[in-house]
Every structure is written in structure tokens, then in C-alpha cells.
């Protein structure tokens, strides 16, 4: 009995040790980035891991006041693109999902299968023709030229999530609404949309994070620096400040903040959306 107890205690210690090591590996790079931003180049060179002494706030201040780089502009650009993409996916996706989930018509299952094809087509495959296409439509170097492809490539996955949810809403509600004289759109906006808030939140969060982190599409489309999103801004800034690593790290840290804040605030939706969404699909 005594040894059993000792054994479980040892097991617990091993478990905590494993978690602590992994935690350290996750956190140290982030710590290095935050602290590195407060160091002078000399400090950084001498002690990349240590605590900055003294603290140099210049780098952060210069970035935040716009003396260096264009952090706020890039943040705004990322925000505009992100909100645009979320709005697009919600509008187009909810409409289509509603039709596919609740309306009876001949081609219903065929059209759904057609959208499901999108799950097979990775963005990478389409990127060159997409470039040519956007050029033909004169959408290169425009925000809409980033938003539309992002919406289109999210549709397959999001339709699957939305349709599944909307399908599960009980039929009795539809009958009641019909008696109350609701049309299709009245039913959609007054009954379906309010009832679907959880899945709409999940879809929004997945789409927002995807758009926020996306680098490939903006890289393809944008040419002028004033439209760059944060990931592009990071690459551009690094190119311009080749070895001023303290500057680069402070920029990186600032660029990380919005995603981390969003994660802390809506952790439940983000984790459930990014993994649970996949699990249920």
C-alpha cells in the first residue's frame, strides 16, 4: 500500500515535470520577444535571454507613435480585411446554408455536394490562376481582392458547420412561423439567425483568426505598402531593419498582442471552433 502511494506520487511528479518543460518551451520564445523589445542592440547581443536592464522603451514607443514602421496602419488593414471576410462569410454562408438545410428543391443535395468539393481544393492549388483572374477583374492591390478569395475558400467548411446546425432546429418552429404569416426571409432573420448565435459566433471566430493570420492571399494581391496587413508588415519591417533585432522583436510583440488578447477573451469559442469545428465535421 505504501509503495502504491509512492508510485502515484512519483507519476504525478513526472506529469508535472513534463508539463512544466513543455510550458517553458512554449513561453520562453514569447518572453524573449517581449523582453527583447525593451533591450538595446548591445544588451540583446550580450544577453538574449536575460531581463533588460535598464529598460529601453524607445522601440515600443517609436512604433506606437508611428516614428518607426506603420504598426497602426497595418493593424487597421488587418482589421478591415478580417471584418470584411467575417461579414462576407456570415452573409453568403448563412443564406446558402439556410437554403440547403431547410428548403426542398430538386438540386439541393447536388449543390451541397458541389460546395463540399471545396474541402478538397487547397488554396495553394488555385493561387496562380487566382492571381491571373484577379488581374483580369482589376482586383489586384485592392482589399476586396483579398476578402473575396478568403470568403470563397472558407465557404465549404463554414457551410458544412452552418447547415448542420440549422438543420437541427425543430420543424415545429417553422410551422408556428408559417401560421404567424412569416415568409422565408422573415423566418430566416427572426427565428433561424437568433437561434444560431452559437454557431455564428464559432464561424466568425474561425474566419477572423484565419484571416488575421493569413499571409498567402495578401502576399499575392497587395503591392502597395499602405495596404499591407500585419503579417506582411512583419516581413516588410524585418527586411528594412535587417539586424536591428530589438526593433524587430518589439514590432513582433506588438503584432502578437491582438491575437493573444482575442484568444484570452474568447478562448472558449476559439478552441471549440478551431478544433471542435473540425471534429464535428
Amino acid at each position, binding site marked *: 500500500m505504501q509503495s502504491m502511494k509512492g508510485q502515484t506520487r512519483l507519476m504525478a511528479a513526472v506529469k508535472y515535470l513534463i508539463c512544466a518543460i513543455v510550458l517553458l518551451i512554449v513561453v520562453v520564445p514569447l518572453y524573449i520577444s517581449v523582453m527583447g523589445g525593451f533591450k538595446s542592440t548591445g544588451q540583446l547581443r550580450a544577453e538574449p535571454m536575460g531581463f533588460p536592464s535598464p529598460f529601453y522603451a524607445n522601440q515600443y514607443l517609436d512604433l506606437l507613435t508611428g516614428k518607426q514602421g506603420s504598426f497602426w496602419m497595418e493593424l487597421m488593414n488587418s482589421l478591415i480585411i478580417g471584418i470584411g471576410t467575417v461579414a462576407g462569410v456570415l452573409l453568403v454562408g448563412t*443564406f446558402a446554408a439556410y*437554403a440547403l438545410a431547410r428548403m426542398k428543391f430538386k438540386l439541393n443535395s447536388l449543390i451541397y455536394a458541389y460546395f463540399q468539393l471545396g474541402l478538397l481544393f487547397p488554396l495553394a492549388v*488555385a493561387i496562380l490562376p487566382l492571381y491571373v483572374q484577379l488581374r483580369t477583374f482589376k482586383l489586384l492591390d485592392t482589399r476586396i481582392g483579398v476578402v473575396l478569395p478568403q470568403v470563397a475558400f472558407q465557404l465549404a467548411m463554414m457551410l458544412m458547420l452552418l447547415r448542420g446546425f440549422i438543420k437541427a432546429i425543430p420543424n415545429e418552429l417553422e*410551422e408556428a412561423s408559417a401560421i404567424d404569416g412569416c415568409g422565408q426571409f422573415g423566418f430566416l432573420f427572426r427565428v433561424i439567425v437568433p437561434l444560431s448565435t452559437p454557431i455564428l459566433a464559432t464561424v466568425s471566430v474561425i474566419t477572423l483568426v484565419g484571416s488575421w*493570420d493569413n*499571409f498567402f492571399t495578401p502576399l499575392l494581391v497587395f503591392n502597395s505598402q499602405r495596404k499591407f496587413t500585419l503579417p506582411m508588415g512583419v516581413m516588410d519591417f524585418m527586411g528594412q531593419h535587417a539586424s536591428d533585432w530589438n526593433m*524587430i522583436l518589439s514590432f513582433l510583440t506588438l503584432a502578437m498582442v491582438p491575437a493573444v488578447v482575442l484568444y484570452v477573451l474568447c478562448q472558449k469559442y476559439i478552441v471549440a471552433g478551431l478544433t471542435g469545428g473540425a*471534429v464535428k465535421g
Partner: protein
Amino acid sequence: MRSRHRAGIGKASFLTLAILLGPALILFTTLVIVPVFEAAVFSFYRWNGLGPMVDFRGLQNYAQFIQDAIVHKALLHNVIIAVVSLVLELPLAMVLALIVSDPKFKGSVFFRTFFFLPYVLSEVITGVLWQFIYNPQYGVVKAFYALVFPAVQAPALLGDTSTVLWAILVVIVWKYFGFHMTIFIAGLQDIPREQIEAATIDGASKWRIFGSVTLPGMRTSVQLSVFFSIIGSFQLFDIVWAMGKGDPVNAGETIVTYMYKIGLQRFNIGYGGTIAVCIFLICLVFNIFYQKILVKEG
């Protein structure tokens, strides 16, 4: 069920359907489906993206693809990345999921929150951050060498053809293990507690329980993780691009970074299209194959 025939807010008129489905169909067709077919058309031509596409080359681009040494290299890298994900990352994620989802384990929410954090950061930010860590003049690698081997100069892990791929792999594992861990946790929650309790009462060892109750119960989530690891490795771009664009001498190249270089830096859109088609075929074949195996097993 009784109400099925009474249901209804009138018939679906064509106009209603067009308003509801039209935007999605147009967007999806023009920006997802058409481009994939266009890539297939490009793949038979020699074309720089400007002017009319007239220089038909038949299957020559495909012949070039098969013989292209850089393609072989890039595909090999993709396979290595997939294999390392399967044999290192997923087991690590599994161990952590098992530890963290034990209700008796205190602090599990805390650990989970941090383990998932790297997944939320953008790949570009992650890549640049690790460029610093690997930097031989400033980074952590340099500090480590100064401490452990003071006489030796720190290696440039991202600048050396023999180490760059492994250096990128570390970052991939760093960024994605939390994602897989979370998928596994979701899978673990679906296993009925009674099954595990029953096995414990029967006197089964912990390993035995894991092998014959836990793991089979997590089938769906393991299959998903394997699927994401393999498909994900063949679509890898951002993180590699942010850590040196596949250089030096293509030692970190993946198939998508190579396609991007061919298509949009050297403007050989025809050959780029060929590479795109081949990526698609690889993913498609894997997909069919994987589904088949799953269907057979289940």
C-alpha cells in the same frame, strides 16, 4: 415526424433560391472551382502570364516535373515533415492530452491555455520570432553555445543546408502540437467513463486500458489529426517563407514555396500550373486512399 407533411412556409420559389444561393455559388465557382481547372489548362502551356497563351507544350511540363531535382527535394521535405509530425508531434500531443484531461490533475486549464497559444499566432510572426532564436549573432542558440561550448562559434541553423529543415521542423512542432492535443482532448471526452472504470475494476493495467479502451475510443480524433498533419504538410508555405523562403539552395524548400517561386517570381505560370495540379493530385489520391482505409476498417 407526424408534422413533416404539414411543414412549410410556402414553396421555395426560384427567386428566393437565387437570392439565397446565388452569391455563394458565384463566389465559390469563380474563385475556387474555375481557378483549379485553369491551373490544369495552364499546365499544358509555356506562358509567362502576359499576352495570349499560345505556346502549347503538351505533356512537356509534366515531363519536366518528373525530372526536376528541386521537385524531388521539395517533395521529400514534405514527406519528412509529415513523418516527423506523425511520429513525434502526435505522440507528444497524445501524452499531454492524457495528462491534462485527467480530472485529478490540478492546473489543467492553465496548461491547456498555454499549450494552445502558439496555434493562435500567425505563421509569419512565429517564423520571424524563431529566426531570432536561431540567429547565430544574437539569438538563443548563440547564448546556449556561449554557455556550453564557449570555444565554438554558434552555427547558423537556418543558413546551413544540413540543418535548415530540422530547424523549421522544430518550429512546426512548437506551433501545432497544441492543436492536436486539443483534438485529442475532445476525443477523450467522448469516451464513457464507465468503460475505463470497468476495465480498472477488472484489474487491467494502465497500458492495457490505454491500448484497448482509450485509443480505440479516440479513433475519430486520431484519424483527424493524422489527416491534418499529412495534408497540412503538403500545403505548408507561410512558416517556411518567413524562415528563409526555402533557402539556402532549396534545402528548406517545400512544394508550395517552389510553386510560388516558379509561378510568381520567375513568372513561369505554365510550369507553376503543372506543380499546382500535381499538389492537387497528391492530396486527392491521399484523400481517396485514406477514406478507403477508414471505410474498410470501420
